[in-house]
Protein backbone atom coordinates (compact mmCIF):
# COMPACT_ATOMS: atom_id res chain seq x y z
CA UNK A 1 0.00 0.00 0.00
CA UNK A 2 2.76 2.35 1.04
CA UNK A 3 4.83 1.31 -1.95
CA UNK A 4 1.94 2.07 -4.28
CA UNK A 5 1.50 5.47 -2.75
CA UNK A 6 5.20 6.22 -3.09
CA UNK A 7 5.23 5.12 -6.70
CA UNK A 8 2.25 7.31 -7.48
CA UNK A 9 3.99 10.23 -5.81
CA UNK A 10 7.04 9.50 -7.91
CA UNK A 11 4.98 9.53 -11.09
CA UNK A 12 3.42 12.82 -10.13
CA UNK A 13 6.81 14.28 -9.30
CA UNK A 14 8.27 13.08 -12.61
CA UNK A 15 5.29 14.46 -14.48
CA UNK A 16 5.69 17.77 -12.71
CA UNK A 17 9.39 17.85 -13.48
CA UNK A 18 8.77 17.20 -17.14
CA UNK A 19 6.01 19.79 -17.18
CA UNK A 20 8.27 22.36 -15.60
CA UNK A 21 11.38 21.76 -17.63
CA UNK A 22 9.60 20.87 -20.83
CA UNK A 23 10.11 17.57 -22.53
CA UNK A 24 12.88 17.86 -25.05
CA UNK A 25 12.18 14.64 -26.88
CA UNK A 26 11.18 16.08 -30.21
CA UNK A 27 12.49 14.36 -33.34
CA UNK A 28 14.90 17.23 -33.86
CA UNK A 29 16.14 16.99 -30.30
CA UNK A 30 16.65 13.24 -30.64
CA UNK A 31 18.62 13.72 -33.84
CA UNK A 32 20.63 16.43 -32.19
CA UNK A 33 21.38 14.24 -29.22
CA UNK A 34 22.51 11.39 -31.48
CA UNK A 35 24.66 13.76 -33.50
CA UNK A 36 26.20 15.17 -30.36
CA UNK A 37 27.01 11.72 -29.09
CA UNK A 38 28.64 10.96 -32.42
CA UNK A 39 30.77 14.06 -32.21
CA UNK A 40 28.96 15.78 -35.07
CA UNK A 41 28.68 19.07 -33.25
CA UNK A 42 27.82 21.23 -36.23
CA UNK A 43 24.93 18.98 -37.14
CA UNK A 44 23.89 18.72 -33.51
CA UNK A 45 23.78 22.50 -33.30
CA UNK A 46 21.56 22.72 -36.37
CA UNK A 47 19.18 20.14 -34.97
CA UNK A 48 19.04 21.71 -31.54
CA UNK A 49 18.20 25.02 -33.19
CA UNK A 50 15.45 23.28 -35.11
CA UNK A 51 14.15 21.89 -31.85
CA UNK A 52 14.33 25.33 -30.27
CA UNK A 53 12.20 26.69 -33.04
CA UNK A 54 9.39 24.38 -32.02
CA UNK A 55 9.98 24.84 -28.31
CA UNK A 56 11.91 28.04 -27.77
CA UNK A 57 11.24 28.13 -24.06
CA UNK A 58 12.55 24.67 -23.38
CA UNK A 59 15.38 24.95 -20.89
CA UNK A 60 16.99 21.67 -21.87
CA UNK A 61 17.23 22.62 -25.51
CA UNK A 62 18.56 26.06 -24.67
CA UNK A 63 21.20 24.49 -22.45
CA UNK A 64 22.10 22.06 -25.21
CA UNK A 65 22.53 24.91 -27.68
CA UNK A 66 24.82 26.67 -25.23
CA UNK A 67 26.75 23.46 -24.75
CA UNK A 68 27.19 22.64 -28.42
CA UNK A 69 27.57 26.12 -29.90
CA UNK A 70 31.27 26.63 -29.10
CA UNK A 71 32.08 23.20 -30.52
CA UNK A 72 30.08 23.84 -33.68
CA UNK A 73 31.72 27.23 -34.09
CA UNK A 74 35.12 25.62 -33.70
CA UNK A 75 34.22 23.07 -36.36
CA UNK A 76 33.34 25.78 -38.87
CA UNK A 77 36.32 27.84 -37.88
CA UNK A 78 38.72 24.97 -38.55
CA UNK A 79 37.13 24.32 -41.92
CA UNK A 80 37.28 27.99 -42.74
CA UNK A 81 40.98 28.11 -42.00
CA UNK A 82 41.48 25.03 -44.14
CA UNK A 83 39.62 26.68 -46.99
CA UNK A 84 41.64 29.83 -46.51
CA UNK A 85 44.85 27.86 -46.74
CA UNK A 86 43.66 26.32 -49.99
CA UNK A 87 42.93 29.72 -51.42
CA UNK A 88 39.16 29.23 -51.36
CA UNK A 89 38.43 32.66 -50.04
CA UNK A 90 34.70 32.80 -50.67
CA UNK A 91 34.20 29.42 -49.11
CA UNK A 92 36.19 30.54 -46.11
CA UNK A 93 34.17 33.75 -45.97
CA UNK A 94 30.92 31.79 -45.82
CA UNK A 95 32.25 29.55 -43.10
CA UNK A 96 33.48 32.44 -41.00
CA UNK A 97 30.06 34.01 -41.37
CA UNK A 98 28.62 30.76 -40.11
CA UNK A 99 30.96 30.96 -37.13
CA UNK A 100 29.63 34.42 -36.39
CA UNK A 101 26.05 33.28 -36.69
CA UNK A 102 26.73 30.67 -34.06
CA UNK A 103 28.98 32.82 -31.91
CA UNK A 104 28.46 36.52 -32.67
CA UNK A 105 31.19 37.56 -30.27
CA UNK A 106 33.78 35.18 -31.67
CA UNK A 107 37.17 36.74 -31.01
CA UNK A 108 38.63 36.50 -34.51
CA UNK A 109 35.94 35.59 -37.04
CA UNK A 110 34.75 39.15 -37.57
CA UNK A 111 38.25 40.37 -38.30
CA UNK A 112 38.89 37.50 -40.69
CA UNK A 113 35.64 38.18 -42.53
CA UNK A 114 36.66 41.80 -42.93
CA UNK A 115 40.13 40.81 -44.06
CA UNK A 116 38.76 38.49 -46.75
CA UNK A 117 36.40 41.23 -47.87
CA UNK A 118 39.31 43.65 -48.06
CA UNK A 119 41.60 41.26 -49.93
CA UNK A 120 38.96 39.97 -52.31
CA UNK A 121 36.46 42.77 -52.71
CA UNK A 122 35.03 41.73 -56.04
CA UNK A 123 34.49 38.11 -55.08
CA UNK A 124 33.01 38.77 -51.70
CA UNK A 125 30.71 41.52 -52.91
CA UNK A 126 28.53 39.05 -54.76
CA UNK A 127 28.66 36.55 -51.92
CA UNK A 128 27.63 39.19 -49.41
CA UNK A 129 24.83 40.44 -51.59
CA UNK A 130 23.50 36.94 -51.93
CA UNK A 131 23.92 36.29 -48.23
CA UNK A 132 22.13 39.45 -47.23
CA UNK A 133 19.29 38.91 -49.64
CA UNK A 134 18.67 35.36 -48.54
CA UNK A 135 19.06 36.01 -44.84
CA UNK A 136 16.81 39.03 -44.84
CA UNK A 137 13.94 36.81 -45.78
CA UNK A 138 14.99 33.89 -43.71
CA UNK A 139 15.28 35.85 -40.51
CA UNK A 140 11.83 37.24 -40.85
CA UNK A 141 10.44 33.85 -41.64
CA UNK A 142 12.21 32.22 -38.75
CA UNK A 143 10.48 34.60 -36.39
CA UNK A 144 7.03 33.54 -37.49
CA UNK A 145 5.27 31.52 -34.81
CA UNK A 146 3.15 28.43 -35.29
CA UNK A 147 4.67 27.47 -38.57
CA UNK A 148 4.43 23.84 -39.29
CA UNK A 149 7.78 24.17 -40.93
CA UNK A 150 10.04 27.14 -41.02
CA UNK A 151 10.98 27.53 -44.61
CA UNK A 152 13.74 29.97 -44.23
CA UNK A 153 15.80 29.10 -41.24
CA UNK A 154 19.31 29.68 -42.38
CA UNK A 155 20.53 26.82 -40.32
CA UNK A 156 18.48 24.03 -41.68
CA UNK A 157 16.23 22.80 -44.37
CA UNK A 158 13.20 21.18 -42.79
CA UNK A 159 13.39 18.07 -44.82
CA UNK A 160 16.46 17.22 -42.87
CA UNK A 161 14.08 16.19 -40.13
CA UNK A 162 14.02 12.72 -41.55
CA UNK A 163 17.75 12.40 -41.88
CA UNK A 164 19.32 10.58 -39.01
CA UNK A 165 22.94 11.47 -38.48
CA UNK A 166 25.22 8.55 -38.91
CA UNK A 167 27.37 7.96 -35.88
CA UNK A 168 30.96 8.28 -36.89
CA UNK A 169 33.55 5.84 -35.70
CA UNK A 170 36.41 7.95 -36.89
CA UNK A 171 37.36 10.31 -34.14
CA UNK A 172 40.06 12.18 -35.97
CA UNK A 173 39.57 15.86 -36.45
CA UNK A 174 39.84 15.63 -40.19
CA UNK A 175 37.32 12.88 -40.64
CA UNK A 176 35.04 15.24 -42.51
CA UNK A 177 35.19 18.73 -43.70
CA UNK A 178 31.56 19.66 -43.41
CA UNK A 179 28.54 18.28 -41.61
CA UNK A 180 25.79 16.72 -43.67
CA UNK A 181 23.39 19.61 -43.62
CA UNK A 182 21.89 18.89 -47.00
CA UNK A 183 18.65 17.22 -47.79
CA UNK A 184 18.34 13.60 -48.68
CA UNK A 185 15.15 11.82 -49.55
CA UNK A 186 15.55 8.09 -49.61
CA UNK A 187 13.69 6.39 -52.42
CA UNK A 188 11.47 3.56 -51.31
CA UNK A 189 12.19 1.15 -54.14
CA UNK A 190 15.31 1.14 -56.23
CA UNK A 191 14.79 1.25 -59.95
CA UNK A 192 17.03 1.98 -62.86
CA UNK A 193 18.41 5.47 -63.22
CA UNK A 194 16.23 7.51 -65.52
CA UNK A 195 17.58 10.27 -67.70
CA UNK A 196 17.06 13.78 -66.54
CA UNK A 197 13.95 15.32 -67.88
CA UNK A 198 15.11 18.25 -69.87
CA UNK A 199 13.38 21.50 -70.28
CA UNK A 200 13.02 22.87 -73.80
CA UNK A 201 15.81 25.37 -73.54
CA UNK A 202 17.84 23.45 -71.05
CA UNK A 203 18.15 20.66 -73.58
CA UNK A 204 21.03 22.59 -75.11
CA UNK A 205 23.11 22.03 -72.02
CA UNK A 206 24.41 18.67 -70.94
CA UNK A 207 22.57 16.97 -68.09
CA UNK A 208 23.84 17.14 -64.58
CA UNK A 209 26.47 14.51 -63.98
CA UNK A 210 25.69 12.93 -60.69
CA UNK A 211 26.03 9.47 -59.30
CA UNK A 212 23.27 7.13 -60.39
CA UNK A 213 20.58 7.18 -57.80
CA UNK A 214 17.62 4.87 -57.80
CA UNK A 215 14.46 6.81 -58.32
CA UNK A 216 10.81 6.10 -57.73
CA UNK A 217 8.53 5.94 -60.69
CA UNK A 218 5.95 8.67 -60.61
CA UNK A 219 2.31 7.98 -61.20
CA UNK A 220 2.39 9.91 -64.44
CA UNK A 221 5.37 7.94 -65.64
CA UNK A 222 7.81 10.85 -65.34
CA UNK A 223 10.93 10.21 -63.35
CA UNK A 224 12.92 12.80 -61.51
CA UNK A 225 16.42 12.96 -60.26
CA UNK A 226 16.43 12.99 -56.50
CA UNK A 227 19.85 13.88 -55.34
CA UNK A 228 21.69 11.82 -52.85
CA UNK A 229 22.93 13.66 -49.85
CA UNK A 230 26.44 13.74 -51.22
CA UNK A 231 25.23 15.27 -54.47
CA UNK A 232 23.08 17.74 -52.71
CA UNK A 233 26.02 19.64 -51.34
CA UNK A 234 26.22 21.44 -48.08
CA UNK A 235 24.77 24.68 -46.92
CA UNK A 236 27.87 26.58 -47.83
CA UNK A 237 27.65 25.31 -51.40
CA UNK A 238 24.50 27.28 -52.04
CA UNK A 239 25.04 30.54 -53.76
CA UNK A 240 21.58 31.59 -52.77
CA UNK A 241 18.46 30.34 -51.14
CA UNK A 242 15.08 31.77 -51.92
CA UNK A 243 11.51 31.38 -50.80
CA UNK A 244 8.66 31.82 -53.20
CA UNK A 245 5.02 31.53 -52.39
CA UNK A 246 1.64 32.03 -53.90
CA UNK A 247 -0.35 32.38 -50.69
CA UNK A 248 2.11 33.61 -48.10
CA UNK A 249 2.11 37.39 -48.36
CA UNK A 250 5.60 37.68 -47.02
CA UNK A 251 7.07 36.21 -50.14
CA UNK A 252 6.72 36.86 -53.80
CA UNK A 253 5.83 34.16 -56.22
CA UNK A 254 8.53 35.29 -58.61
CA UNK A 255 12.01 36.05 -57.39
CA UNK A 256 15.28 37.00 -58.94
CA UNK A 257 18.10 34.66 -57.98
CA UNK A 258 21.38 35.19 -59.76
CA UNK A 259 22.95 35.83 -63.14
CA UNK A 260 19.71 36.95 -64.76
CA UNK A 261 17.82 33.91 -63.49
CA UNK A 262 14.35 34.47 -62.06
CA UNK A 263 12.26 31.64 -60.68
CA UNK A 264 8.47 31.71 -60.56
CA UNK A 265 6.29 29.35 -58.59
CA UNK A 266 3.50 28.11 -60.76
CA UNK A 267 1.80 25.64 -58.49
CA UNK A 268 2.24 23.06 -55.75
CA UNK A 269 0.53 19.73 -55.20
CA UNK A 270 -0.20 17.96 -51.99
CA UNK A 271 -0.22 14.29 -52.93
CA UNK A 272 2.47 13.68 -53.97
CA UNK A 273 4.18 16.75 -52.62
CA UNK A 274 5.67 18.54 -55.59
CA UNK A 275 6.08 21.95 -57.15
CA UNK A 276 5.89 23.48 -60.60
CA UNK A 277 8.53 26.09 -61.32
CA UNK A 278 9.14 28.38 -64.27
CA UNK A 279 12.60 29.67 -65.11
CA UNK A 280 13.04 33.12 -66.57
CA UNK A 281 16.15 34.71 -67.99
CA UNK A 282 15.80 38.48 -68.19
CA UNK A 283 12.01 38.34 -67.98
CA UNK A 284 11.77 35.75 -70.72
CA UNK A 285 10.53 32.34 -69.74
CA UNK A 286 13.00 29.75 -70.86
CA UNK A 287 11.84 26.61 -69.07
CA UNK A 288 8.96 25.01 -67.26
CA UNK A 289 9.72 22.39 -64.67
CA UNK A 290 6.69 20.43 -63.55
CA UNK A 291 6.15 17.91 -60.72
CA UNK A 292 9.39 18.59 -58.88
CA UNK A 293 9.48 16.81 -55.52
CA UNK A 294 11.62 17.80 -52.58
CA UNK A 295 15.25 17.11 -53.42
CA UNK A 296 14.77 17.46 -57.17
CA UNK A 297 17.52 19.24 -59.03
CA UNK A 298 17.37 20.93 -62.39
CA UNK A 299 20.10 22.53 -64.36
CA UNK A 300 19.77 26.20 -65.17
CA UNK A 301 22.05 28.29 -67.33
CA UNK A 302 22.39 31.93 -66.46
CA UNK A 303 22.70 34.94 -68.67
CA UNK A 304 26.48 34.65 -68.67
CA UNK A 305 26.36 31.02 -69.78
CA UNK A 306 27.28 29.72 -66.37
CA UNK A 307 25.49 26.56 -65.35
CA UNK A 308 23.80 26.32 -61.99
CA UNK A 309 21.91 23.65 -60.17
CA UNK A 310 18.54 24.52 -58.70
CA UNK A 311 17.55 22.25 -55.84
CA UNK A 312 14.07 22.11 -54.34
CA UNK A 313 14.56 22.09 -50.59
CA UNK A 314 11.11 22.36 -49.10
CA UNK A 315 7.56 22.42 -50.36
CA UNK A 316 4.61 23.47 -48.27
CA UNK A 317 1.39 22.96 -50.07
CA UNK A 318 -0.83 24.59 -47.46
CA UNK A 319 0.58 28.01 -48.18
CA UNK A 320 1.94 27.07 -51.61
CA UNK A 321 5.45 27.91 -50.57
CA UNK A 322 8.67 26.53 -51.95
CA UNK A 323 12.23 26.95 -50.77
CA UNK A 324 14.94 26.28 -53.25
CA UNK A 325 18.66 26.71 -53.32
CA UNK A 326 20.94 27.36 -56.22
CA UNK A 327 24.51 26.20 -56.39
CA UNK A 328 27.30 25.72 -58.86
CA UNK A 329 26.85 22.95 -61.34
CA UNK A 330 28.78 20.52 -59.15
CA UNK A 331 28.77 20.49 -55.39
CA UNK A 332 31.67 22.33 -53.94
CA UNK A 333 32.42 24.32 -57.06
CA UNK A 334 31.47 27.87 -57.63
CA UNK A 335 30.77 29.25 -61.05
Amino acid at each position, binding site marked *: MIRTRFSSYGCIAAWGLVALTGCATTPDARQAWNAEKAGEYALAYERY*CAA*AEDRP*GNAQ*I*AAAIRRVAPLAARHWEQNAHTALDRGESIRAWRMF*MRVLEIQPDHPS*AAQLVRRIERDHPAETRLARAEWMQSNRRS*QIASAEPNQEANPASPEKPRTQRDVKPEPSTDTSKERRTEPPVAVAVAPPEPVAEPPLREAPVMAKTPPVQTNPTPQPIRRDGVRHRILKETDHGTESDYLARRIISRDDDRY*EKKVYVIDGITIKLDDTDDDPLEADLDVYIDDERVAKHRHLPVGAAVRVVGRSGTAYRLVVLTIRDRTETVIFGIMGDAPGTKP
Partner: protein
Amino acid sequence: MMAVSHRRVRTVRDGQGIRVTPVRDHRTPHPASVTRVAGACALLSLLLGSGCSTIEEGPRVIFCDGAGWSGSHRPVSAGLRAAGFRGRVESFAWSTLLGPGADHYLVARKKSKGEELAARIVEIRKAHPDASLHLMGLSAGTAVVVFALEQLPDGVRVDNVVLFSASLSERHDLATAMQHVRGRLYATCSMRDRILSGVGVTADGLSGRPAGLGGLRIPDRMRSDDGYARVVNLHWRPAYAGFGWTGTHTGVADKRFVQHVIAPRLLDPLPHPLDRPLASSRTGRYGTLARTP
Protein backbone atom coordinates in the same frame (compact mmCIF):
# COMPACT_ATOMS: atom_id res chain seq x y z
CA MET B 1 9.01 84.03 39.36
CA MET B 2 12.58 83.18 39.47
CA ALA B 3 14.27 82.00 36.30
CA VAL B 4 15.73 78.55 36.57
CA SER B 5 19.04 77.98 34.96
CA HIS B 6 19.56 74.51 33.49
CA ARG B 7 23.25 75.00 33.18
CA ARG B 8 25.12 72.43 35.18
CA VAL B 9 27.95 73.53 37.48
CA ARG B 10 30.72 71.72 39.23
CA THR B 11 32.26 72.64 42.57
CA VAL B 12 36.01 72.25 42.83
CA ARG B 13 37.77 72.47 46.12
CA ASP B 14 41.43 73.51 45.96
CA GLY B 15 43.97 75.39 48.01
CA GLN B 16 42.34 78.75 47.37
CA GLY B 17 38.92 77.65 48.51
CA ILE B 18 35.82 76.42 46.68
CA ARG B 19 35.39 77.26 43.02
CA VAL B 20 32.30 76.77 40.95
CA THR B 21 32.98 75.99 37.29
CA PRO B 22 30.44 75.29 34.58
CA VAL B 23 30.27 71.71 33.24
CA ARG B 24 30.07 71.36 29.49
CA ASP B 25 26.85 69.71 28.45
CA HIS B 26 27.54 67.15 25.72
CA ARG B 27 23.96 67.40 24.52
CA THR B 28 24.60 70.86 23.21
CA PRO B 29 26.84 71.02 20.17
CA HIS B 30 30.16 72.70 20.30
CA PRO B 31 30.09 76.04 18.49
CA ALA B 32 32.95 74.95 16.20
CA SER B 33 31.19 71.77 15.11
CA VAL B 34 28.06 73.74 14.37
CA THR B 35 30.04 75.90 12.03
CA ARG B 36 31.55 72.87 10.29
CA VAL B 37 28.19 71.18 9.76
CA ALA B 38 26.68 74.38 8.49
CA GLY B 39 29.50 74.75 6.00
CA ALA B 40 29.10 71.19 4.77
CA CYS B 41 25.37 71.67 4.35
CA ALA B 42 25.93 74.84 2.40
CA LEU B 43 28.42 73.09 0.11
CA LEU B 44 26.09 70.15 -0.40
CA SER B 45 23.17 72.40 -1.22
CA LEU B 46 25.35 74.29 -3.63
CA LEU B 47 26.34 71.10 -5.40
CA LEU B 48 22.76 69.87 -5.55
CA GLY B 49 21.53 73.21 -6.72
CA SER B 50 23.99 73.35 -9.53
CA GLY B 51 23.07 69.81 -10.63
CA CYS B 52 26.38 68.25 -9.65
CA SER B 53 27.75 69.14 -13.05
CA THR B 54 30.80 66.90 -12.90
CA ILE B 55 29.94 64.25 -15.49
CA GLU B 56 32.33 61.36 -15.35
CA GLU B 57 34.39 60.81 -18.43
CA GLY B 58 34.29 57.53 -20.32
CA PRO B 59 31.81 55.47 -22.29
CA ARG B 60 28.23 55.67 -21.22
CA VAL B 61 24.95 53.90 -21.88
CA ILE B 62 21.59 55.46 -21.09
CA PHE B 63 18.85 52.89 -20.72
CA CYS B 64 15.10 53.58 -20.77
CA ASP B 65 13.14 50.74 -19.29
CA GLY B 66 9.73 49.62 -20.46
CA ALA B 67 6.26 50.77 -19.54
CA GLY B 68 5.59 50.06 -15.89
CA TRP B 69 8.69 47.95 -15.84
CA SER B 70 12.03 48.57 -14.26
CA GLY B 71 13.60 45.16 -14.15
CA SER B 72 15.70 45.19 -17.27
CA HIS B 73 18.32 47.75 -16.37
CA ARG B 74 20.25 45.36 -14.17
CA PRO B 75 20.63 42.43 -16.64
CA VAL B 76 21.44 44.81 -19.48
CA SER B 77 24.11 46.43 -17.38
CA ALA B 78 25.46 43.05 -16.29
CA GLY B 79 25.58 41.82 -19.89
CA LEU B 80 27.47 44.87 -21.05
CA ARG B 81 29.98 44.58 -18.25
CA ALA B 82 30.44 40.85 -18.89
CA ALA B 83 31.31 41.73 -22.47
CA GLY B 84 33.97 44.16 -21.34
CA PHE B 85 32.11 47.45 -21.28
CA ARG B 86 33.86 49.71 -18.78
CA GLY B 87 31.63 52.66 -18.46
CA ARG B 88 28.50 53.93 -16.80
CA VAL B 89 25.12 52.36 -17.48
CA GLU B 90 22.57 54.81 -16.20
CA SER B 91 18.87 54.32 -16.12
CA PHE B 92 16.65 57.14 -17.29
CA ALA B 93 13.41 57.08 -15.33
CA TRP B 94 10.43 58.15 -17.36
CA SER B 95 7.55 56.15 -15.97
CA THR B 96 4.39 57.87 -14.77
CA LEU B 97 4.09 55.30 -11.97
CA LEU B 98 0.49 54.85 -13.06
CA GLY B 99 1.10 51.42 -14.55
CA PRO B 100 2.09 50.06 -17.92
CA GLY B 101 -1.11 51.16 -19.64
CA ALA B 102 -0.61 54.81 -18.85
CA ASP B 103 3.07 54.63 -19.69
CA HIS B 104 2.35 53.05 -23.03
CA TYR B 105 -0.52 55.22 -24.20
CA LEU B 106 0.50 58.68 -22.93
CA VAL B 107 2.48 59.90 -25.91
CA ALA B 108 2.80 63.49 -24.67
CA ARG B 109 4.41 62.25 -21.48
CA LYS B 110 6.97 60.28 -23.45
CA LYS B 111 7.69 63.27 -25.64
CA SER B 112 8.31 65.50 -22.66
CA LYS B 113 10.53 62.86 -21.12
CA GLY B 114 12.27 62.57 -24.45
CA GLU B 115 12.97 66.26 -24.24
CA GLU B 116 14.51 65.75 -20.82
CA LEU B 117 16.62 62.91 -22.14
CA ALA B 118 17.73 65.07 -25.04
CA ALA B 119 18.80 67.75 -22.58
CA ARG B 120 20.76 65.17 -20.66
CA ILE B 121 22.48 64.02 -23.86
CA VAL B 122 23.38 67.59 -24.74
CA GLU B 123 24.82 68.01 -21.28
CA ILE B 124 26.93 64.89 -21.60
CA ARG B 125 28.10 65.82 -25.07
CA LYS B 126 29.04 69.29 -23.88
CA ALA B 127 31.18 67.79 -21.14
CA HIS B 128 32.72 65.01 -23.22
CA PRO B 129 32.25 65.50 -26.95
CA ASP B 130 34.25 62.45 -27.95
CA ALA B 131 33.20 59.91 -25.33
CA SER B 132 31.10 57.07 -26.64
CA LEU B 133 27.44 57.36 -25.75
CA HIS B 134 24.86 54.73 -26.53
CA LEU B 135 21.11 54.82 -26.04
CA MET B 136 19.01 51.78 -25.24
CA GLY B 137 15.32 51.37 -24.73
CA LEU B 138 12.94 48.56 -24.00
CA SER B 139 9.36 48.40 -25.23
CA ALA B 140 7.73 51.81 -24.72
CA GLY B 141 11.08 53.13 -23.55
CA THR B 142 12.16 52.93 -27.18
CA ALA B 143 9.67 55.69 -27.96
CA VAL B 144 11.33 57.90 -25.36
CA VAL B 145 14.69 57.17 -26.96
CA VAL B 146 13.49 58.01 -30.46
CA PHE B 147 11.67 61.14 -29.28
CA ALA B 148 14.86 62.26 -27.57
CA LEU B 149 16.88 61.73 -30.73
CA GLU B 150 14.36 63.73 -32.71
CA GLN B 151 14.61 66.65 -30.31
CA LEU B 152 18.38 66.85 -30.22
CA PRO B 153 19.88 70.02 -31.64
CA ASP B 154 21.90 69.88 -34.84
CA GLY B 155 25.35 68.44 -34.47
CA VAL B 156 24.65 66.49 -31.30
CA ARG B 157 24.91 62.79 -31.93
CA VAL B 158 25.05 59.54 -30.01
CA ASP B 159 27.08 56.56 -31.13
CA ASN B 160 24.65 53.65 -31.32
CA VAL B 161 21.04 53.00 -30.44
CA VAL B 162 19.48 49.71 -29.42
CA LEU B 163 15.70 49.32 -29.38
CA PHE B 164 14.68 46.18 -27.51
CA SER B 165 11.22 44.90 -28.43
CA ALA B 166 10.23 48.32 -29.69
CA SER B 167 6.58 49.15 -29.27
CA LEU B 168 6.76 52.17 -31.53
CA SER B 169 5.30 51.82 -34.96
CA GLU B 170 7.21 49.94 -37.63
CA ARG B 171 6.35 52.88 -39.90
CA HIS B 172 7.89 55.49 -37.65
CA ASP B 173 9.94 57.86 -39.76
CA LEU B 174 13.47 57.56 -38.44
CA ALA B 175 15.08 60.03 -40.83
CA THR B 176 15.34 62.80 -38.24
CA ALA B 177 16.42 60.48 -35.46
CA MET B 178 19.13 58.88 -37.57
CA GLN B 179 20.71 62.27 -38.20
CA HIS B 180 21.74 62.15 -34.56
CA VAL B 181 23.20 58.65 -34.65
CA ARG B 182 26.82 58.20 -35.63
CA GLY B 183 26.80 54.44 -35.82
CA ARG B 184 23.84 52.14 -36.18
CA LEU B 185 20.38 51.65 -34.81
CA TYR B 186 19.54 48.08 -33.86
CA ALA B 187 15.98 46.93 -33.33
CA THR B 188 15.29 43.50 -31.92
CA CYS B 189 12.05 41.93 -33.00
CA SER B 190 10.22 38.68 -32.56
CA MET B 191 6.91 37.44 -33.86
CA ARG B 192 6.67 35.40 -30.68
CA ASP B 193 6.27 38.58 -28.64
CA ARG B 194 2.78 38.11 -27.23
CA ILE B 195 2.72 41.42 -25.41
CA LEU B 196 3.27 43.41 -28.57
CA SER B 197 0.84 41.19 -30.44
CA GLY B 198 -1.93 42.48 -28.23
CA VAL B 199 -1.05 46.16 -28.44
CA GLY B 200 -3.69 48.12 -30.33
CA VAL B 201 -1.95 51.47 -30.58
CA THR B 202 1.79 51.81 -30.69
CA ALA B 203 3.78 53.72 -28.09
CA ASP B 204 4.36 56.62 -30.47
CA GLY B 205 0.68 56.96 -31.19
CA LEU B 206 0.93 55.87 -34.80
CA SER B 207 -0.94 53.16 -36.58
CA GLY B 208 0.64 49.99 -37.78
CA ARG B 209 2.33 47.04 -36.24
CA PRO B 210 4.85 47.53 -33.43
CA ALA B 211 8.38 47.38 -34.71
CA GLY B 212 9.22 44.77 -32.11
CA LEU B 213 7.18 42.21 -34.00
CA GLY B 214 8.32 42.24 -37.61
CA GLY B 215 11.03 44.87 -37.44
CA LEU B 216 11.32 48.44 -38.62
CA ARG B 217 10.31 49.23 -42.17
CA ILE B 218 11.15 52.02 -44.52
CA PRO B 219 8.34 54.35 -45.45
CA ASP B 220 7.82 54.51 -49.18
CA ARG B 221 8.40 58.20 -49.45
CA MET B 222 11.89 57.99 -47.96
CA ARG B 223 15.02 58.51 -49.97
CA SER B 224 17.69 55.85 -49.77
CA ASP B 225 20.12 58.10 -47.94
CA ASP B 226 17.88 58.91 -45.04
CA GLY B 227 19.80 56.88 -42.56
CA TYR B 228 18.12 53.54 -43.12
CA ALA B 229 21.39 52.14 -44.40
CA ARG B 230 22.38 52.13 -40.74
CA VAL B 231 19.17 50.64 -39.36
CA VAL B 232 19.46 46.94 -38.60
CA ASN B 233 16.67 44.63 -37.51
CA LEU B 234 17.78 41.79 -35.30
CA HIS B 235 15.10 39.17 -35.78
CA TRP B 236 14.73 36.41 -33.29
CA ARG B 237 16.35 33.17 -34.35
CA PRO B 238 16.16 29.78 -32.65
CA ALA B 239 19.87 30.06 -31.94
CA TYR B 240 19.10 32.99 -29.66
CA ALA B 241 17.43 30.56 -27.24
CA GLY B 242 20.97 29.61 -26.32
CA PHE B 243 21.57 33.22 -25.35
CA GLY B 244 18.52 33.34 -23.14
CA TRP B 245 16.14 35.12 -25.50
CA THR B 246 13.30 32.82 -26.41
CA GLY B 247 11.43 35.43 -28.39
CA THR B 248 9.53 36.90 -25.47
CA HIS B 249 9.01 40.60 -24.86
CA THR B 250 11.29 41.29 -21.92
CA GLY B 251 13.46 38.20 -22.41
CA VAL B 252 15.40 40.14 -24.98
CA ALA B 253 17.09 42.00 -22.15
CA ASP B 254 18.66 38.79 -20.91
CA LYS B 255 22.22 39.23 -19.74
CA ARG B 256 23.63 36.61 -22.10
CA PHE B 257 21.87 38.02 -25.16
CA VAL B 258 23.18 41.47 -24.38
CA GLN B 259 26.64 40.11 -23.71
CA HIS B 260 27.01 37.93 -26.80
CA VAL B 261 24.82 39.60 -29.43
CA ILE B 262 24.35 43.27 -28.55
CA ALA B 263 27.61 44.22 -26.85
CA PRO B 264 29.92 43.11 -29.71
CA ARG B 265 28.04 45.49 -31.97
CA LEU B 266 28.49 48.39 -29.58
CA LEU B 267 32.06 47.79 -28.51
CA ASP B 268 33.47 47.29 -31.99
CA PRO B 269 33.71 50.55 -33.90
CA LEU B 270 33.36 48.69 -37.21
CA PRO B 271 30.02 47.33 -38.36
CA HIS B 272 29.42 43.74 -37.40
CA PRO B 273 29.67 41.42 -40.41
CA LEU B 274 26.27 39.93 -39.65
CA ASP B 275 24.50 43.29 -39.80
CA ARG B 276 21.94 43.57 -42.53
CA PRO B 277 20.90 47.20 -42.84
CA LEU B 278 17.47 47.86 -44.26
CA ALA B 279 18.69 49.93 -47.19
CA SER B 280 21.32 47.74 -48.71
CA SER B 281 19.54 45.07 -50.62
CA ARG B 282 20.11 44.00 -54.19
CA THR B 283 16.92 45.60 -55.42
CA GLY B 284 18.57 48.98 -55.33
CA ARG B 285 16.53 50.65 -52.66
CA TYR B 286 15.64 48.50 -49.76
CA GLY B 287 14.38 45.09 -50.66
CA THR B 288 10.79 44.14 -50.82
CA LEU B 289 10.40 42.98 -47.27
CA ALA B 290 11.68 46.19 -45.81
CA ARG B 291 9.28 48.36 -47.71
CA THR B 292 6.08 49.44 -46.05
CA PRO B 293 3.18 47.75 -47.76
